């Protein structure tokens, strides 16, 4: 080659920030006896009835492609599920696309709407993929920083300040990863008013919608006039404990859904067939399993968050997901220092809040999707660590 390899690479890719989690992953993976509170997925194995349905589909030889949008039976179940659980109505034939995880759903949604230079508001602290996916789609991510003092609840004024003539969309995530914060109906309505006023589109990532513990959940498209400007993203990873199945979906008004389908059919053909058969079972008969898992998370949340507050790491009670996001500012350490020292000295792995955005600095993300025994041991170690500081 006459050119350095690097010069062949896309500038966008070269300029993407490496994920801040990577370094901690390598460190934690190289150590023995680590209790990891750094895992962003359920500690439950997928329920047996779902695994069994998938096995049956394989035994029966359902191993070919499905329709690009996914099995119609699954889309019908998704439509029924969205109606039953969240009171939003979508047409299974034209408004629902089955994807490879919520991850692909977000990517598709962004690629379907972004023209070069379009701005997309990303509410931080946020899931690490949003901003890079906006950039890869040719857009410009514009971050809005929510405030720990307000339990990381997005304030409508903050959105207004970030809006320019190039703003096209906003990515909303409630319950939030990493903060666990849930926006209630009133708060979503206030956001909806701004969205309406400035004619924006909302990509609503509701992957944790099943895991809401205190108040009834409101799905963003259930807010009046919002469905027409919402691309709803959801999936099976968190609520149904199906991360490895790589299955999610998009629900959106027909024109958005059909644009998304156009990309999906060229880039992916369809989501994995066997996973789709498992998902049909999850939606048909999974409600009790989800309820049991949710109960278990809620108890662990209550235990863990109270323990954090007692040891001096102040933490709001997160309304959803399975993350606690306590402040470590009182220790005088940065998030990275805290996480690194805690890992090296007490073998407890947490994720520094700073990897989720500027406003995550001074916080750490602890997943309480670990067994109660592990959580109790982690609490013991963290107390010991804090006592030494």
């Amino acid at each position: 080659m006459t050119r350095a390899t690097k010069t062949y690479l896309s500038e966008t890719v070269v300029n993407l920030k490496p994920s801040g989690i990577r370094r901690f992953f390598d460190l934690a993976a190289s150590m023995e006896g680590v209790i990891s509170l750094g895992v962003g997925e359920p500690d439950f194995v997928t329920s047996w009835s779902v695994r069994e349905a998938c096995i049956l589909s394989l035994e029966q030889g359902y191993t070919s492609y499905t329709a690009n949008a996914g099995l119609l039976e699954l889309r019908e179940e998704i439509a029924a599920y969205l109606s039953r659980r969240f009171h939003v109505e979508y047409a299974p034939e034209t408004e629902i696309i089955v994807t490879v995880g919520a991850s692909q759903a977000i990517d598709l949604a962004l690629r379907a709407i972004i023209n070069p230079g379009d701005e997309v508001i990303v509410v931080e602290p946020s899931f690490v993929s949003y901003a890079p996916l906006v950039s890869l789609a040719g857009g410009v991510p514009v971050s809005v920083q929510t405030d720990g003092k307000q339990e990381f609840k997005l304030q409508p004024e903050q959105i207004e300040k970030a809006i320019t003539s190039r703003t096209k969309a906003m990515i909303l995530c409630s319950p939030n990863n990493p903060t666990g914060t849930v926006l209630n109906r009133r708060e979503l309505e206030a956001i909806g008013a701004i969205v309406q006023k400035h004619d924006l589109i909302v990509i609503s990532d509701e992957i944790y919608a099943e895991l809401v513990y205190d108040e009834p959940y409101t799905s963003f498209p259930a807010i009046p006039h919002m469905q027409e400007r919402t691309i709803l993203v959801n999936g099976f990873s968190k609520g149904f404990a199906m991360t490895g199945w790589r299955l999610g979906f998009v629900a959106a008004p027909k024109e958005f859904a059909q644009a998304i389908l156009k990309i999906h059919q060229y880039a992916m053909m369809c989501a994995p067939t066997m996973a789709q058969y498992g998902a049909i079972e999850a939606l048909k008969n999974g409600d009790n399993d989800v309820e049991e898992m949710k109960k278990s998370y809620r108890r662990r949340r209550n235990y863990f968050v109270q323990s954090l507050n007692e040891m001096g790491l102040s933490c709001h009670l997160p309304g959803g997901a399975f993350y606690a996001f306590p402040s470590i500012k009182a220790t005088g350490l940065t998030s990275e220092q805290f996480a690194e020292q805690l890992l090296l000295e007490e073998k407890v792995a947490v994720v520094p809040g700073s990897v989720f955005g500027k406003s995550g600095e001074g916080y750490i993300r602890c997943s309480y999707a670990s067994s109660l025994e592990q959580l109790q041991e982690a609490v013991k170690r963290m107390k010991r660590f804090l006592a030494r500081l």
Partner: protein
Amino acid sequence: MKLTDKELEVVEILSKNARLPLETIAKMVSLSIEETEQIVRKLEEEKVIVQYAAIVDWRKIDGHEGVTAMIDVKVTPKRGVGFDEVAERIYRFPEVKSVYLMSGAYDLSVVIEGRSMSEIAKFVSEKLSTLDSVISTTTHFILKKYKHDGTVFEQGDQDKRIVMSP
């Protein structure tokens, strides 16, 4: 009896793991330790919680592997007391671990534990079959316990997740 939501939660938590520290349970249900203790005491007094016991895999202990049998028993119910009288005569034997009245082909299902097959055979022939109202018995020996009271005995349930993910 009607339990409050919190009381019900405490029962559920204890039924899964009776050895959790009171402090942990209190935090899980967002109550004080004293309030939680009060709930537990009430549940015990009302015999909602009947007993705390360990689920033991006796096969692991040399010389204590033991034998369990399930016996289908057909009986003639007695006027006035139905099946209760004969059931009581049977469940009073300490080697009898459980007795259920069943619908279907037989009447009582009796689970019995003994040190050996011959010990159980002796119980059946001498104690059980000789009861006046017992018409017949069919004894099934348990060869292997896979799952007992919701607990899987040999569980390979190590955490398969990667240590850190977004």
